[in-house]
C-alpha cells in the first residue's frame, strides 16, 4: 500500500503562485509609473516654481521672453470652460438618460443608447475641427452675439462677443462630455429598483413625481460621480479647447471673450519652447494634475457622503 501523495503534480504546482506574482507586479508597476511621473515632472519644473514663487499660480503675466511665468489666466480658463461645460452637459445628460430609462420605447432606447456611445468614441480633434468650421459660424458666433446684445448688462455676457471664447470652448466641451455623463447616469437609473417606482405610483404619483421622488434620490450619488468624471475629462481636454478658446492670455469676466486654458497652452507652445519656458509648461502640467486630483478626491468624498444617507 503506497502512501497517498498530498502534492499537486506538474505545472499546476507553480501556476497559482506565478499568477499571483504577475498580478502583484502589474499593480506595483502602475504605482511606480504614477510616482515617476509626479516626481520627474515636478523636478523638471522646480526651478521655475522657485524663481516665480507664488506668482506662478497667482500672477497672470505670461511672457516667456522676459522670463515671466504667471499661469492664472490658464487656470482661470480651464476652470471657466469646464464649469460652462457642466452647466450645459449635466441637465442635458439627465434629460437624455431619463428619457432612455423612463420614457422611450424599448426599440428607440437601443438606437439612442448606441448613438450616445458612438459620440463618446469620436476623437477630440474631430470635435475641435467640427466646432471651428461648422458650429462656430452656425451656432457659436450667432449665440454669442445674441447673448451680448440682449444680456450684455450682465458682466459675464459683456461684449465684444466672440465665438472663439470661453463660451465656445465650453459648448464644445459640453458636447464632448455629455455622452459619458449620459451613459453613466443611465446605468445608475437602470439600477433603481422597480419596487421603488411601483411604490410611488401606488401612492398616486404622476410619472414626473415618481422620477423626482423615487428615481433621482436613488441615483443621486451616481449622478454626482458621473458629473465628476465628465468634469475630469473637461479639465484635461486639449485639442478641441485649443482650437476654440481663442488663445488670449488674460483673465476676463465675460465668457464671450477669448481666453486660454492650461492644456491648450501646453499643446500650442511646447514645440517652440526652450529652457525655462519648457519648465514652465511642465509646471502647468503639474498644477493641472494637482487640480484634477483635488477634484477627484472631492468627488469621492461627495459620493461617499451621498451613499451614506
Amino acid at each position, binding site marked *: 500500500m503506497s502512501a497517498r501523495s498530498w502534492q499537486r503534480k506538474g505545472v499546476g504546482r507553480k501556476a497559482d503562485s506565478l499568477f499571483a506574482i504577475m498580478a502583484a507586479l502589474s499593480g506595483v508597476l502602475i504605482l511606480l509609473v504614477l510616482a515617476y511621473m509626479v516626481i520627474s515632472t515636478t523636478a523638471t519644473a522646480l526651478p521655475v516654481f522657485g524663481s516665480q514663487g507664488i506668482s506662478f499660480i497667482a500672477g497672470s503675466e505670461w511672457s516667456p521672453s522676459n522670463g515671466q511665468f504667471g499661469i492664472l489666466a490658464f487656470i482661470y480658463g480651464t476652470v471657466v470652460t469646464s464649469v460652462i461645460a457642466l452647466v450645459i452637459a449635466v441637465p442635458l445628460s439627465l434629460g437624455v438618460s431619463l428619457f432612455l430609462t423612463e420614457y422611450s420605447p424599448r426599440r428607440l432606447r437601443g438606437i439612442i443608447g448606441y448613438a450616445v456611445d458612438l459620440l463618446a468614441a469620436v476623437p477630440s480633434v474631430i470635435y475641435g475641427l467640427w466646432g471651428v468650421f461648422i458650429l462656430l459660424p452656425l451656432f457659436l458666433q450667432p449665440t454669442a452675439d445674441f447673448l451680448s446684445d440682449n444680456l450684455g448688462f450682465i458682466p459675464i455676457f459683456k461684449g465684444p462677443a466672440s465665438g472663439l471664447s470661453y463660451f465656445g470652448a465650453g459648448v464644445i466641451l459640453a458636447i464632448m462630455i455629455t455622452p459619458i455623463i449620459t451613459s453613466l447616469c443611465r446605468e445608475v437609473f437602470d439600477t433603481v429598483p422597480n*419596487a421603488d417606482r411601483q*411604490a410611488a405610483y401606488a401612492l398616486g404619483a404622476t410619472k414626473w413625481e415618481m422620477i423626482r*421622488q423615487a428615481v433621482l434620490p436613488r441615483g443621486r450619488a451616481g449622478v454626482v460621480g458621473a458629473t465628476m468624471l465628465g468634469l475630469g475629462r473637461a479639465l484635461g481636454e486639449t485639442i478641441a479647447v485649443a482650437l476654440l478658446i481663442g488663445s488670449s492670455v488674460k483673465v476676463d469676466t465675460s465668457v464671450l471673450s477669448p481666453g486660454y486654458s492650461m492644456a491648450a497652452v501646453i499643446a500650442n507652445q511646447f514645440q517652440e519652447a526652450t529652457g525655462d519656458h519648457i519648465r514652465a509648461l511642465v509646471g502647468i502640467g503639474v498644477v493641472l494634475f494637482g487640480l484634477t486630483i483635488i477634484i477627484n478626491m472631492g468627488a469621492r468624498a461627495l459620493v461617499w457622503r451621498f451613499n451614506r444617507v
Partner: protein
Amino acid sequence: MSPETLPVDANSERTGVTPLAAVAARDDSEISQGLAEKPVFAVRDLSVHYGKSIALKGVTMDIRPRRITAIIGPSGCGKSTLIRCFNRMNELIPGAQVSGEILYHGEDIYASGVDPVVVRRHIGMVFQRPNPFPKSIYDNVAFGAKINGYRGDMDELVERSLRRAALWDEVKGKLKKSALDLSGGQQQRLCIARAIAVEPDVILMDEPASALDPIATTRIEDLMQELKQEYSIIIVTHNMQQAARVSDETAFLYTEVDAETSARWGILVEFGDTGQIFTKPRDKRTEDYVSGRFG
C-alpha cells in the same frame, strides 16, 4: 349629532371633493342608515391580456366594505394580476390590456375619463417586499400626502398614520432616521402607514408578509384586523393558513390550460365566505387545493 349625519361629515372631510370620493361618502351614509350594503368593488367579467396571451379570464365578484377579502390559488394563477387591476397598476406593464368592468362604489375605474393617478389616491397598495423609499421615516409617510397637496398639519398626519399602522411607539424618537435602518417587519408596517397617510378607503396587499418572519407576520395580521374597522382590505396570499386566519371572504383562483396550445390563464373558481371555502368548498378543485392536495 344624529347618527345619520355624523358618518357623512366625517367621510367628506376625510376624502376630499373628487367625484369618486363623493360617491364613496354617499355610499357610506347609506350603510349607516341601515340600507343594503353596497360592494366597494363590483368586478364584472374582468379579463387581462399581456400582449397576445391571456392572463386572467372572466372574473366576476363583489368586494364588500370593511372586510378582508383573500385571493388564494397556486402559483401563476393570476392572483397578483387580479389585485393589480383594482388600482390600475397593471397598465404600467407594457402590453397589458384590461377588459370588462371594475365598478368602485358604482363607478367604472376603467372608464375613458378616469385618471389612473386619481384612482391610486383612493386605493392604497402594499407590496410583497417592503419597499420604503431611501428617505427618512417621516418623509416616507408624508410622501403621498405631499404629492396629493395635503394642506393640513403634516406632523399630525404622520403620527396618526404611524399609530394606525402600530409603528408609532417603535419609531417616535427617530422619525428623521433613514427608513432603510428599520427591520423588515417594521419597514412593511411603515409601508402600510405610508399607504394609510393618503387616506384611501381600500388597501390592497400583495403577499404582504411573504418576506417576513413569523413574529412580524403575526403583527401584520393583527394590524389587518384593526384596519378593517375603517378600510376594505384585499389581500393576495400564498399561505392558506393566513387566508383562513385573517380573511372574511376568500376567492380561489386556479390555472386553466388549453390542451392544444398549452396556453395558461387564471380563472375564478369559487368565491365565498372564508369558513365555507375552507370547510365546505363547493368545487372539487377548491377542495383539493385547501386540503393541500396540490399547490
